[in-house]
């Protein structure tokens, strides 16, 4: 009994539940088994995702003052003074605006987890030179962006232990619609 058969049955049940995809899982064909065992160092090198509990965060640290210097040099051109906005979008401010007539979604007003900021900046920013920052620089930039709205203190360094503990202002702002819409929707 393969795992996929159990999961496929489960999926079929879930799919019915949320009025979803009609394509029932027909029998999964057996493959020729041509996958090569992945070398541990390749897995380690490519594992760049960070989970909300901090799994995947690297060693290193950085604080807001260091972050401000890097920000002015590498980010300000597209994201504005103190993250106030530019062609790359606004990163700061807007806290408390989500119920207003003009909701402002920024990293600080909207994102539920600080781990996502680290994950995203490290993999994708600056957009003209992705993956060019060191882990210390990424920690510093996260600290800087958060400090603009007082979510961390200017003097607090972030590292793999402190970063996942940050309580983002909109931590409880999301309602999961998987596997089905919650009651009342």
């Amino acid at each position: 009994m393969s795992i996929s058969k159990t999961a496929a049955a489960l999926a079929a049940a879930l799919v019915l539940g949320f009025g979803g995809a009609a394509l029932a899982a027909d029998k999964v064909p057996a493959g020729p088994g041509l996958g090569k065992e992945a070398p541990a160092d390749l897995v380690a090198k490519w594992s760049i995702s960070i989970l909300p509990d901090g799994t995947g965060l690297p060693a290193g640290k950085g604080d807001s003052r260091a972050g401000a210097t890097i920000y002015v040099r590498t980010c300000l051109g597209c994201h504005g003074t103190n993250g106030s906005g530019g062609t790359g979008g606004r990163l700061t401010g807007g806290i408390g605006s989500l119920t207003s007539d003009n909701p402002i979604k920024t990293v600080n007003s909207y994102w539920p987890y600080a781990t996502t900021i680290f994950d995203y900046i490290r993999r994708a920013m600056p957009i003209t030179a992705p993956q060019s920052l060191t882990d210390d620089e990424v920690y510093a930039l996260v600290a800087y962006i958060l400090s603009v709205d007082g979510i961390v203190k200017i003097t607090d360094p972030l590292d793999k232990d402190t970063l996942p503990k940050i309580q983002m202002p909109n931590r409880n702002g999301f309602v999961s619609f998987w596997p089905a819409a919650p009651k009342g929707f």
Partner: protein
Amino acid sequence: MDSDTKRLRRVAAELDEPVAANGLLHRRAFLRGGIAFTGFAAAAVTAHDAAAQAAAATGEKLSARTLMTQAVMGGPFTAYGQPARYERDAVREFTVNQLTPGTGSSRTPHHVLEGMITPSGLHFQRNHNGVPDIEPNQHQLLIHGLVKRPLTFTLDSLSRYPMESHIRFVECAGNNGGFNAAEPRQADVQAMHGLLSSSEWTGVRLAVLLDEAGVDPKGKWILAEGGDGASMSRSVPIEKCMDDAVIALYQNGERIRPEQGYPMRLLLPGFEGNMNVKWLHRIQVTPTPTFTKDETSKYTELMPNGKARQFMFQQPVNSFITKPSYQINLQGPGYYEISGLAWSGAGKIAKVEISADEGKSWAQAALVDPVLPMAVTRFRLPWKWSGQPLTLVSRATDEKKNVQPTRSQWLKLYAPNQGYKFNGITAWAADGTGQIRHVYI
């Protein structure tokens, strides 16, 4: 007049009776050879024959009376065919940000296309850091995380797995987002609905590869990551991965285009476009969603109470009319075919209705075969326009009985400026001259 002709005339007369207000005809009116078209065709053929016989008697060179292009040698073979050079309107539309020229989107010109397949070169794009140039022999797909055996696959090895082909749409969650504007935007179907495309995708069922790696029972999600400059990444529930998810290697018969994820992309039928990760190079089986930037900051739907819907993956039932539409105006009173596209992330389209009086009366459109799940379906309806001003709207229902809401019903669900997953009914108004404008009803 023989009895067959009489019968046909009678059927034609019946079919010429509108089934809904303002000239909407029965969906089979054209198909049964009804209406005036039959008579017109016969007369044209006779006139042509007579002219041909007269010319044959004069003894002039054949080229004197045929087409210019028939009297010269044609062009040489081409290695890869291109559209006719006159088809300059059938192109993708996009705006360029000087600092980040590859980031943003380009749109499919549905207003000038027909059928149910989008030509590969016109498939919409939403790129988060341009199109990478990936050497296929260097590309590997890594599957790791909560699995018994972390594995890598090359394009060559994947090409030896059993293949499946499916015609499926891919639609950006932000498609149709312009309908939340306070005033109706005067823009064509491409601008309003162009982040939707449809292809035949061929590849390997993801469940086969996950089975080979051996998913741990604690693995409830995967993280799929692209090999582009954004390392674009999304979480997908394991149930979808074990159901109909495909690692697509081919699009419309050829290797996937670079803009669509060459050499491989994830295809999640019916799910929002962003999750169909292009340039796929890594799949990590995880216990929870990863909460990436594109499933928190973007592609979540803010509601009026300040909370946001998250992981609402399925694209809702939707439709739009392409003929007529903004810039595709009517050329005077007479017969027309109203045509457009309908689709749903929940399955097959069951029905498309058209109204020419703002929803007071409806006529059912013909659905063009094949009608497939999570694929666009072409609909058509014969129409006799008398020349009076009116408003045309379409309304699709899928096989799960989901129906498009009105625009105002949809707006009530979300916060101001929320533009993802719009599927409200949309409307085109014709004035007395046949000019089409976008209106809200």
